[in-house]
C-alpha cells in the first residue's frame, strides 16, 4: 500500500514538472526568461546584466533568471545557446569581436557566428590605451616615438584575452603607427590591471570602463571611439591624433538561430526600453560604458561589417584556421 502511495506521489510530481515545462501558446513571454552570461561573475558582461535586471523584469513582465555558463572564453555558453530551444525563452549575452574571431581562429568553436541570432547590441566599451600616472609618456606621440626608437617588442602592452578587442586594438595600433608592441594577454581586465599598477607592463590596451574606475592612477593616452566620451572628456580619440582606429568590445544579447522573428522583435523592443530607462543609463554612464541602441537589423549589419574587417586583418597575420 505504501509503495502505491509513494508511486502516485512521484507520478503526480513528474506530471506537474512536465506540465509547467510546456510553454503555453498564449502571448510571449508567458514564463520566465533565462539570460545566460558567458563570463565570470563580476566581469563587464555580468555587471551589465545586473544593471539591466530590474528594468528587464519591469518591461518584460516576467522574471529573468541569470545563469552562468563559463568556459572557453565564452564559446561553451554560445555553443550551448545554439543548441537551445529557439522559442525565445533562452537568450545569452554575446560579445564582439569574440563571436567572430573564435570560429575564425579555432576552426571548430562549437558554434558559428551567424548561428547566434542578434537581438540587440546595448553597449560598447571602446579600447583605451593607458599608462600609469607616473609614466614618462604624457601623450600618445611620446609613446609612439619611444616605441619607434627602441627595438621591436620592448614596449609591452597588457590586455584582456587573446583574439579579443584589446588584442586587436594593439595589432591595429602596430599597423597604423608602424611600431611593434608586444601584446601580453591576461585572463581578464581584472588581472591586467595589477600588472600595470605593479609596473610589469609599460601600458594597457584596455576598455573605457577602466579609464573611469582608475582615473586617479592611470593616464589615458587615447581612446578608440569615433567621438570623445563624456565621462572621459580629456582623452583624445585615436582618430583626432591621426590614427584611424575605432575598435572595442560590443556587447549585446542573442538567441538561437531559428527563433521566430516576431519573438526577436518583441525582445528587441524590451531591451530598447531597458537601455533608454534613465536609471539604467545613469549606471551605465557612471561605469564608463557607452550605451548603444542597435536592434536586430543594425546588429546583424555590424557583425557582417566587422567580419569582413577582421578577416582581412587576421589573414594578414596568418591567424585564420582553415
Amino acid at each position: 500500500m505504501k509503495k502505491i502511495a509513494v508511486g502516485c506521489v512521484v507520478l503526480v510530481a513528474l506530471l506537474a514538472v512536465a506540465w509547467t515545462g510546456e510553454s503555453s501558446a498564449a502571448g510571449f513571454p508567458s514564463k520566465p526568461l533565462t539570460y545566460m552570461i558567458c563570463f565570470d561573475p563580476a566581469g563587464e558582461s555580468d555587471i551589465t546584466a545586473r544593471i539591466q535586471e530590474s528594468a528587464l523584469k519591469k518591461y518584460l513582465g516576467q522574471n529573468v533568471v541569470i545563469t552562468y555558463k563559463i568556459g572557453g572564453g565564452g564559446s561553451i555558453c554560445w555553443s550551448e545557446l545554439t543548441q537551445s530551444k529557439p522559442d525565445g525563452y533562452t537568450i545569452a549575452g554575446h560579445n564582439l569581436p569574440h563571436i567572430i574571431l573564435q570560429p575564425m581562429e579555432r576552426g571548430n568553436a562549437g558554434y558559428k557566428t551567424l548561428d547566434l541570432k542578434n537581438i540587440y547590441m546595448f553597449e560598447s566599451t571602446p579600447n583605451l590605451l593607458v599608462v600609469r600616472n607616473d609614466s614618462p609618456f604624457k601623450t600618445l606621440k611620446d609613446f609612439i616615438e619611444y616605441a619607434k626608437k627602441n627595438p621591436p617588442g620592448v614596449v609591452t602592452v597588457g590586455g584582456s584575452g587573446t583574439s579579443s578587442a584589446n588584442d586587436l586594438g594593439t595589432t591595429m595600433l602596430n599597423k597604423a603607427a608602424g611600431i611593434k608592441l608586444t601584446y601580453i594577454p591576461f585572463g581578464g581586465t581584472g588581472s591586467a590591471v595589477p600588472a600595470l599598477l605593479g609596473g610589469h607592463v609599460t601600458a594597457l590596451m584596455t576598455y573605457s570602463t577602466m579609464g573611469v574606475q582608475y582615473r586617479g592612477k592611470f593616464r589615458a593616452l587615447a581612446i578608440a571611439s569615433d567621438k570623445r566620451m563624456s565621462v572621459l572628456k580629456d582623452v583624445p580619440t585615436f582618430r583626432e591624433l591621426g590614427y584611424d582606429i575605432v575598435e572595442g568590445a560590443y556587447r549585446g544579447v542573442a538567441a538561437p538561430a531559428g527563433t521566430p522573428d516576431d519573438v526577436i522583435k518583441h525582445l528587441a523592443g524590451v531591451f530598447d526600453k531597458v537601455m533608454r530607462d534613465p536609471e539604467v543609463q545613469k549606471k551605465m554612464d557612471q561605469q564608463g560604458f557607452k550605451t548603444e541602441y542597435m536592434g536586430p537589423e543594425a546588429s546583424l549589419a555590424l557583425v557582417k561589417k566587422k567580419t569582413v574587417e577582421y578577416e582581412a586583418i587576421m589573414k594578414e597575420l596568418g591567424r585564420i584556421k582553415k
Partner: protein
Amino acid sequence: MAGPGLRARLLPDAEDGGFPMLDYLWLGLQHLLTFQNLLLVFAGTVMGMIAGALPGITATMAVAVLVPFTFTMSPVAGLVTLGAVYMGAIYGGSFSAILINTPGTPSSIGTCFDGYPMACQGRAEEAIVAATVGSCLGGLFGVVCLIFLSPPLADIALKFGPAEYFWVGVFGITIISSLSSGSVLKGLVGGCFGALISTIGIAPIGGDVRFTFGFPAMQGGVELVVMLIGLFCIPELLSLVVKGEGMKTRSEYGYTRTKGVLWKTTRHIVLHLQGNLWRSSIIGTIIGILPGAGGNIANLVAYNEAKRASKTPEKFGTGFVDGVVATETSNNAVVGGGMIPLLTLGVPGAPPDAVIYGVLMLFGLQPGPELFSTKADITYTFMLGVGLSAIVMVPVGIYGGRLLARFVAKLSTAYLVPGIAILTMVGSYAIRNNFLDVILMLVFGFIGFGLRRLNFSAAPIVLGLILGPLMETGLVRAYLMGMAYPSPWFTLFVNPLSWILIALCAISFLWPYFGSMKERLQGSLKE
C-alpha cells in the same frame, strides 16, 4: 611603486594615522551590533557553512548565488552577508573533508590528509574541533591584517609579476614531495599528469585549442572541483562497494561521544600549537593577498610548512591534529588577506573576491581611498562583520559538526554510498551547468580508483592541475615581456623578489636531503 605615503593617502585626515581609524572602528562596531546585521552575519555564516560542506559547491559559487538577494538590501547589509557566507563556506569545507574524505571546497584539500584518518580512528570530533579552532583563529588573523595593515600589504601584492607567479608555481611543485605518502617519484609523475590535464581546453595565452579531441564542449577544460570529487570521493565509494574496505568497516570509525574532547583539543591547540597557528595564518594571509592565488594553494603550502617545521613529520598523514590545524587556519586567513588588494586596489585576491568586487561596483563603492574615508562606515562594518563571522562559526560548527559526525557515522552504508554518489553528481553538474562535468568526474573517479591500487596519491595530481595554469601563464608572459633582454628568459631572474622565491624553492626542494645529511653528520660525529 604606488608612491610614498600610500597609508597617508588612504587615511587622509590622519597625521599620525591612528585616530580616524579608531573612530571608524568604533563606528563600524556600532553599525554591526544591530539586530539586523547580527542576524545577517549569523544566517550568512550558517548558509556558507552548509554550502561549503557540500562537495561541488565552492565558496565562490555560494557567494555568487546570494548576490541577487543583496540587491534589495542596503550596501552594508549586503556586503556583511556575503562576507559571512564566504568565511563560513571556507570553514564548512572541512566537514566533508574529515567525514567522507572529499574536500567540500578546494581550500580543504589538505584537511583530508589528516582529518579523514582521524575520523577513521573514531576521533572525528577532535578533528572537527581542530578545524573549528584553526578556522576561527586564522580567520580573525586575516581580518586583523585587513583592518590594520591593508595599504603596505597591498603594495607587496603589486610587486608580484608574471615571473614571480611562475616561481610561486615552482614552489608549489616542491611541496609534492611532502604530499606524496610514499614514493616521491610517483608524486612527481602524478603532478605532471595533473599539469597535463590542466592544458586541456583553450590555452590561456595564445588561445590555442588543446586536447579537446574534437569535442567543442571540452574547450572549457577540466574543472578543479570535478577532479577533486572524482579523485577523492569516488575511489572511496568504490572501495566500500567492491571490497567492503574503507571507513565504515573500520569499527573505530564514528563518533564516540567522549566527554571533554572539546576543551582538551582546544587547550592543546592553543597552548602547544602556537607556532603552527601563527605560521599558517601568515601563509594564508600572504597567499590571499596575491591576486589569483587563493585557499586552494594556501592550505597545501601551510600543510607542507607545518610538516617541515614539525619534530615528528612522519606523523603527518596518519591522523595528526597539526595537519588539520595547519590547513584550516591558513584557508580562513585567506578570506581576510584576499580582501586587502580588493578593497585598496580593486584587485580581487581570491576568486570569491571577484564576486564581491562586482557587488561593490553595483553599490557604487569604488575600491581605494574612498572606501577608507568617506565610505568608511560601510567598509569598517563589513570588515568587522567578516571577523564576527569567524567567531560565530565556532558554536555553530562545534554543535552542528557533532550532529553531522554522528549522523554520518550512524548512517548505514546502504544509504551513505548512494547518498554521497548523488551529491557528487549534483555537485559536479552545479559548477558549470554542464553535463560533461559529471562524466569527467566519473572518469576521474575510475582513474583515481586505479591509481590508488598502484599507490599513487591523489593530492599531487590535484596540485598539478592547480599549479599548471599558474606556471604556464607566468612563464609565457614573462617570456613575452623579455623581448628587450638578450634572452627572453632573463625576466625570470631579474627581479629581487624572484631571487627570494627561487631561494625558497631551493630550500623547500632540498629540505629532505638536509635531514638525511644532518643524520649522517651526527652519525659520523658519534663515531
